[in-house]
């Protein structure tokens, strides 16, 4: 259910072909009324159906915040556990597309700040399929944060059924000198930066792709940091109260004695998302900024 998901085949073609396959009952074009259709999905899920709601951009979920952050997250709690809300809210949540501040939000931190909600950020097609299946089967509300810049990438995805469980991080690359913790598209950029650091600087970097923000795989983060003794956190969120602010806290609390350097971060440069393409490409984490910060962390 969402804007242009059925007959138009999806604004980004994510739902392409589904309307032809499943028809009007299961693929529903909505008017531009995010509050109403996300609230409707919440109410419908209370009676046992499992709506998947698309936000054309996660930025548009902001006009439905009361529905998503009050009703989806708190109905279970306020009913003393009598209700549960098995919905999925999915859509792109990224910058780097030259569309200005209103269309470039990355609200996984805001979602994670609401107990009752879950949020995942797939960085590749394999995880996108496996996490989406896990999200739909989950009996709690799950946000799936996608990235329009990844929609155009090609990966091999198994045809057969598989699940990527919520709360399980993925080690994209093993290493011994530095741990980079990242999620979403930034994990892919971090992986590229790790390869460059290895080739040009002889530094062995381990890259942890969180996949799931809440629940969070603390264990994998801590195991890696305890091994490498250094942590660099990379995300597209703005730094203040970003996801990595929490992860940094966890690392200092639970692996303080293992650290050989302060935890470092690369986040979006702390200003509203800028329109100008060249500047926006610098504002969000890129390979150059990651390498620069990694070298500082190792200095």
């Amino acid at each position, binding site marked *: 259910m969402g804007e242009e998901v059925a007959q138009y085949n999806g604004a980004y073609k994510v739902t392409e072909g589904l309307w032809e396959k499943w028809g009007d009952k299961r693929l529903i074009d909505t008017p531009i009324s995010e509050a109403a259709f996300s609230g*409707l*999905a919440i109410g419908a899920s209370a009676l046992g159906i499992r709506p998947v709601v698309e936000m054309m951009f996660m930025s548009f979920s902001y006009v439905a915040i009361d529905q998503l952050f009050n009703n989806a997250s708190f109905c279970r709690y306020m009913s003393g*556990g*009598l209700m549960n809300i098995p919905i999925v809210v999915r859509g792109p949540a990224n910058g780097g597309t030259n569309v200005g501040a209103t269309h470039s939000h990355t609200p996984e931190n805001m979602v994670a700040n609401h107990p009752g909600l879950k949020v995942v950020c797939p960085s590749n097609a394999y995880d996108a399929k496996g996490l989406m299946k896990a999200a739909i089967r989950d009996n709690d509300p799950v946000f799936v944060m996608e990235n329009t810049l990844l929609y155009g990438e090609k990966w091999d995805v198994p045809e057969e059924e598989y699940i990527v469980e919520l709360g399980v991080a993925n080690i994209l690359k093993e290493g011994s000198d530095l741990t980079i913790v990242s999620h979403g598209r930034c994990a892919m950029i971090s992986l590229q930066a790790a390869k460059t650091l290895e080739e040009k600087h002889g530094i062995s970097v381990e890259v942890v792709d969180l996949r799931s923000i809440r629940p969070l795989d603390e264990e994998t983060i801590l195991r890696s940091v305890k091994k490498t003794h250094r942590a660099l956190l990379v995300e597209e969120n703005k730094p203040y109260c970003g996801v990595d602010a929490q992860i940094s806290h966890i690392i200092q609390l639970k692996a303080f004695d293992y650290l050989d350097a302060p935890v470092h971060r690369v986040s979006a440069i702390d200003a509203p998302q800028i329109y100008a393409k060249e500047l926006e490409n610098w504002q969000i984490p890129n390979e150059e900024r990651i390498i620069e910060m990694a070298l500082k962390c190792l200095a």
Partner: protein
Amino acid sequence: MANSDFVKATLMATTKKKTAAPAKKSTTKSAKSTNFATAPINKSLTKEAKIALYRTIVGIRRFEERSLRAYNQGKIGGFLHLYIGQEAVATGIVSLMEENDHIITAYRDHGHALAVGMSMNECMAEMYGKHTGCSKGKGGSMHFFAPDKNYWGGHGIVAGQTPLGAGLAFALKYKGLKGCALAFLGDGAVNQGSFMETLNLASLWNIPVVFVIENNGYSMGTSLKRSSAEENLAHRADGFDMEWEVCNGHDVFEVREVANRAMTRAREEHKPFLLEIRTYRYRGHSVADANHEKYRTKEEIEEYKRTKDPVNVIKQQLLADGTLTEDEAKKIDQEKKDEAEASAKFADESPVAPRSEIQTDVYWEVDNDSESKLKGTYFFND
């Protein structure tokens, strides 16, 4: 600033049927001259069913009077939005609910809760913040829930429950069930965007939801005149090609007669309906609203109590038609007072939930993970 005209006016019940433009708004009957008790939906009521309506209305009144005392004693925290004066609305409509009908409302939710059959004990204990409350003390006065009775809350944000109500109705239609959803809201909620978006969706998709505006004349301290450009709130349905009807809310039989049409149509034709029910609250927006005699006059309140008190109106009707004697009415009243008093005692003596309950009922998957298969950290306390 008072809305005296609103109260004094004897409402002429008006309806609009979906017809080719221009819409026909026919004035059908005046509330004064019609005996709604003789309408077919009411005539078929057994003596026991009529007495049950009386018991519910009186029960809500006595329960809320007792909760007000508890609030003033400092036993109930937060907000207390009393329904006193509006009892016949929830009572009448809930009495029409069938197996697949569902109901959702806003924060003035005690009346609806008791009407669907929730116990005074669980409701009072919830307001006291006790473990024996309907939500284990996690919701409070504004957030009563009873899904086993098709009652989906109890919601704190103005109009936020209206799309959920449409969703309940959407699910009924999706599953091929014959039923309707009742989405209650106040006159203060009609100017929220989420409500207007929901009216459009409901009509566009032919969803069997009945929106019930309980128009008590005031959105908190702001009178209808000062908050809505079009005071005939039901007329908004016209903009969404939706049928509407307006009626009075002090006579439970009138409420039943009019709501029955809306609910039947929703069930039979999968069509939404907008009901505006003119009612009145005696107390402030919440008990904390000490100024409620500043934005309206004492006379206005007294006038309504004298002529349209829902408890008195049904009582006089049942005495007149021989359903009840004065003694029987008194006996019921005393029973409800006693039940309310007992609920306060029950709440007072109940324990607060243990601290470990703060982190339960957050995630279904955590609560039900008996084999601990879940991965990752769900809660982030140091």
